[in-house]
């Protein structure tokens, strides 16, 4: 079974009594008893069911809908089409800022991608509404769909990711290549992928006298509130959104999507509460995906294996009507030292739903290509892949020249390699076999992810009974916000975690910012920490000016908050409980406020990233070409660890996403029609339990004084990056599920099993 050691944060990294402790999930009992309420679990009285009808073509217009047939079906209450959709205050195609994505809200009869909503059928029961949607029997005027990375004229996007420049360079790549003693020129493709959170997007919406009441999963409550307010022309604070638990998000629930708005429209149209839940296949269109990429890497190295040039060019795709460009080349800004460095992007427009950020956008796609190219270069230089990476280790951020705020990557390499047994790896491929005759290959890759900070606010209250309250509208999508943020909140107030009420997950709380970019714990956590400091300072002020308090006159020496008491810093025997201070001051409570945001000065001075190294063993059947990952060891430097139990789970999840990227998941689009061909969990493969190898995660000690007040870096996503596996077949072991060969076209040359030559698309292992 999995080799698992819960790596506790070293004692000196702990702060207070809560941070650093491997607490179990605070919402754990609710989740194992079925009592945790996800959006679609709400059934308010009088609720109707809305079901989407979606387009079966990718481009054209809806010519007809048999609305009469749908309406005639027993139990159908109404059918919403472009002809009768309630008015909106804002054009769904308006785009005021890059984070505002265009939606299909039945504004016309155009079809711009397959699975686009074209009507909403509302019924008394789910069964009636579902049947009603099929009775619409749409017909189309179909136009030829533009598909694939060669499906359109390419252009240079104005920006990639969220506002990053599309092209950046330093030095002279062509001169660097000319001066190199070895070069490689390799092209890699990555397929479109879909988030496929286990919980489909869902909404239960009710219009009431007070405004709009919504249950829906959201990774960004305040942004969702603002978007809905704009579309319906109502005040944001008249919209109350509850999102206590997300059944996974991975980026697809970062922004409210068109189907969720259609649920609100259906409630408006009928004057009754409405539940709308996407069917799984309807998630392959209107709620985002990871765009496909084709990446060309040109590398040069000198005789000693030092890079002289690194050129990373990406071709990707967005929709015909909106902009999101997968920033795959940007990974090369950060990882390897090269005096000459260039990154660039081009894009085509396809008849597809708009792509979106999906777990590590740019980093996941980009590092699989960069790391494969690095392996190929190491091979060309006759060097071990790890030795080659150490030879090109970046002590300053390659693109900017800035020092890193902290970077314990060498230690990740060392500890990961030692644990894995890397030193026993033969340099030449195809040297190892197991007792059953399977080829055994060992490979490794580097992970990195920026330590981002967004903006968040929090409120802290210390009550007369000595307990605390902490509030921020944070989002728990499985990363452990309910627990980790409560730990930070409790330490911020100097209280045991059971003495603090922690509120999160609703839109009426202070804005916790978006739960994305692996920045939520750092951002919302910093806000909580500062709110706690503020409340403690106010409490201390009450005591310090009261001559009856044992703390009176502590003045310059100050006080420390611990276990519900303030202690004089210069004489800890002199202390007073929070309850006593508030009682004597005769106030019911004190309140503090805090904000979490990036420190612009620190960001200007330092490059801030989390790092890691992942080592993988795969076994390949030499006759069938079947590849299975059998063992993974990852070592990660992620700053301060708030909860090692949850960090372990996040890291394992990221490593499994890496396995999935390498061996399993791939959306296939019919080139003739533009329709996704595998829009379901049977044919879009994600790893099942039997696909997951023995996992081991090491958290490397790292302290970062610059990244934020708590020293927290990204913890989740970096693990899913930087791992590439030798590809080609899926190991179909799940009962009742077909074992298809989902072949990816990129490869990794460092793995010993590699049967084909480097630099060419990998085909299944030939029979031998």
């Amino acid at each position, binding site marked *: 079974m999995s080799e698992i050691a819960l790596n506790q944060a070293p004692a000196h990294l702990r702060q207070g009594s809560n941070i650093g402790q491997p607490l179990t999930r605070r919402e754990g009992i609710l989740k194992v008893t079925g*009592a945790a309420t996800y959006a679609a679990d709400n059934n308010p009285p009088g609720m109707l069911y809305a079901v989407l009808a979606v387009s079966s073509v990718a481009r054209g217009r809806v010519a007809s809908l048999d609305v009469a047939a749908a309406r005639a079906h027993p139990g159908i209450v109404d059918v919403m089409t472009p002809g009768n959709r309630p008015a909106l205050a804002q054009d769904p195609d308006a785009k005021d800022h890059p984070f505002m994505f265009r939606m299909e809200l039945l504004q016309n009869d155009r079809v711009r991608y397959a699975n686009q909503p074209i009507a909403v059928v509302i019924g008394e029961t789910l*069964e009636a509404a579902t049947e009603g949607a099929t009775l619409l029997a749409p017909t189309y005027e179909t136009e030829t769909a533009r598909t694939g990375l060669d499906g359109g004229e390419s252009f240079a996007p104005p920006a990639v990711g969220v506002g990053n420049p599309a092209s950046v360079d330093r030095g002279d790549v062509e001169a660097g290549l000319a001066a190199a003693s070895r070069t490689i020129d390799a092209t890699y493709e990555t397929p479109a992928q879909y988030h496929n959170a286990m919980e489909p997007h869902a909404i239960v919406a009710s219009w009431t006298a007070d405004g709009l009441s919504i249950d829906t999963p959201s990774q960004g409550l305040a942004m969702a509130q603002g978007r809905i307010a704009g579309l319906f022309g109502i005040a944001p604070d008249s919209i109350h959104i509850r999102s206590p638990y997300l059944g996974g998000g991975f980026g697809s629930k970062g922004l409210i999507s068109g189907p969720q708005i259609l649920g609100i429209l259906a409630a408006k149209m009928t004057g009754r509460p409405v539940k709308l839940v996407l*069917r799984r296949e309807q998630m392959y269109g209107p709620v985002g995906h990871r765009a496909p990429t084709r990446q060309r890497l040109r590398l040069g190295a000198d005789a000693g294996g030092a890079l002289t040039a690194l050129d990373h060019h990406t071709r990707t795709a967005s929709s015909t009507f909106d902009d999101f460009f997968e920033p795959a080349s940007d990974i090369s800004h950060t990882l390897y030292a090269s005096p000459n460095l260039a990154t660039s992007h081009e894009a085509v427009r396809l008849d597809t739903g708009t792509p979106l950020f999906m777990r590590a956008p740019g980093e996941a796609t980009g590092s699989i290509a960069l790391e494969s190219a690095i392996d190929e270069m190491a091979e060309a230089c006759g060097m071990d892949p790890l030795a080659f990476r150490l030879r090109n280790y970046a002590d300053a951020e390659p693109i900017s020249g800035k020092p890193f705020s902290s970077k314990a990557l060498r230690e990740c390499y060392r500890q990961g390699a030692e644990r894995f047994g890397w030193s026993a790896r033969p340099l030449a491929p195809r040297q190892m076999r197991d007792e059953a005759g399977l080829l055994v290959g060992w490979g490794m890759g580097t992970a990195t992810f920026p330590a981002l900070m967004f903006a968040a606010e929090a409120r802290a209250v210390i009550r007369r009974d000595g307990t605390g309250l902490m509030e921020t509208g944070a989002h728990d999508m499985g990363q452990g916000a309910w627990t980790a943020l409560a730990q930070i909140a409790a330490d911020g107030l100097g209280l045991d975690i059971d003495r603090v009420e922690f509120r999160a997950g609703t839109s009426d709380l202070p804005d916790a910012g978006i739960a994305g970019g692996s920045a939520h714990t750092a951002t919302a956590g910093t806000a909580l920490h500062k709110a706690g400091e503020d409340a403690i300072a106010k409490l201390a002020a009450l005591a310090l000016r009261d001559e009856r308090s044992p703390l009176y006159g502590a003045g310059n020496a100050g006080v420390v908050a611990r276990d519900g008491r303030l202690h004089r810093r210069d004489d800890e025997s002199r202390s007073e409980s929070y309850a006593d201070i508030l009682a004597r001051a005769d106030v019911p409570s004190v309140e503090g406020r805090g904000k979490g945001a990036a420190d612009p000065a620190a960001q200007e001075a330092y490059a801030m990233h989390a790092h890691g190294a992942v080592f993988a063993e795969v076994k390949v059947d030499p006759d069938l070409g079947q590849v299975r990952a059998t063992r993974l060891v990852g070592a990660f430097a992620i700053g301060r660890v708030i909860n090692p139990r949850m960090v372990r789970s996040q890291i394992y999840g990221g490593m499994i996403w890496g396995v999935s990227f390498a061996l399993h998941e791939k959306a296939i689009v019919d080139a003739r029609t533009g329709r996704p061909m595998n829009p379901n969990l049977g044919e879009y493969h994600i790893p099942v339990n039997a696909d997951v190898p023995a996992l081991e995660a090491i958290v490397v000690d790292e302290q970062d004084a610059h990244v934020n007040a708590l020293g927290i870096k990204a913890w989740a996503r970096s693990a899913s990056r930087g791992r590439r596996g030798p590809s080609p077949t899926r190991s179909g072991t799940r009962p009742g599920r077909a074992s298809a060969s989902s072949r990816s076209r990129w490869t990794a040359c460092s793995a010993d099993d590699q049967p084909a030559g480097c630099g060419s698309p990998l085909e299944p292992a030939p029979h031998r």
Partner: protein
Amino acid sequence: MSLTATFTVNGVRRQVDLPDPRVTLLDLLRERLDLTGTKKGCDRGQCGACTILVNGRRTNACLALAISHDGAEITTIEGLATDGVLHPVQEAFIAHDGFQCGFCTPGQIMSAVGLIAEGQAGMDPERVREGMSGNLCRCGAYAGITEAVLDAQARLDAQDRSQAA
């Protein structure tokens, strides 16, 4: 045509009007009996989030028409804990962090209870992984799930031994 069916759900006998024969066991539980612990992830038997026990057997509730299970004994995630005491599988899932977002968790736990009852996997981690592979987890909590199933199995075996003694 008005149909009725009788189910014993988590030990309670319930007669249910089924005016619509299209209702699945999953939608019956979630939308008509307000037992929303059982989740819908795909509605076509591919993800396992809706796993319940029907007459003691693991079943994808989304693929079972309610009317065809008249008389069945059904156990859902809500019926696993007794008198506020968690089932050993539930306890083990918390202890081993066998979930993250928690959406697949009711199905995973019911599947684990069914697997242990089937006695097919024993303490062999590979067989546990295989036996739990009808339940997808996109968060990737599989390591914790496997640990939890093995731990719960060991605890249940010990309970059986002490009861037999």
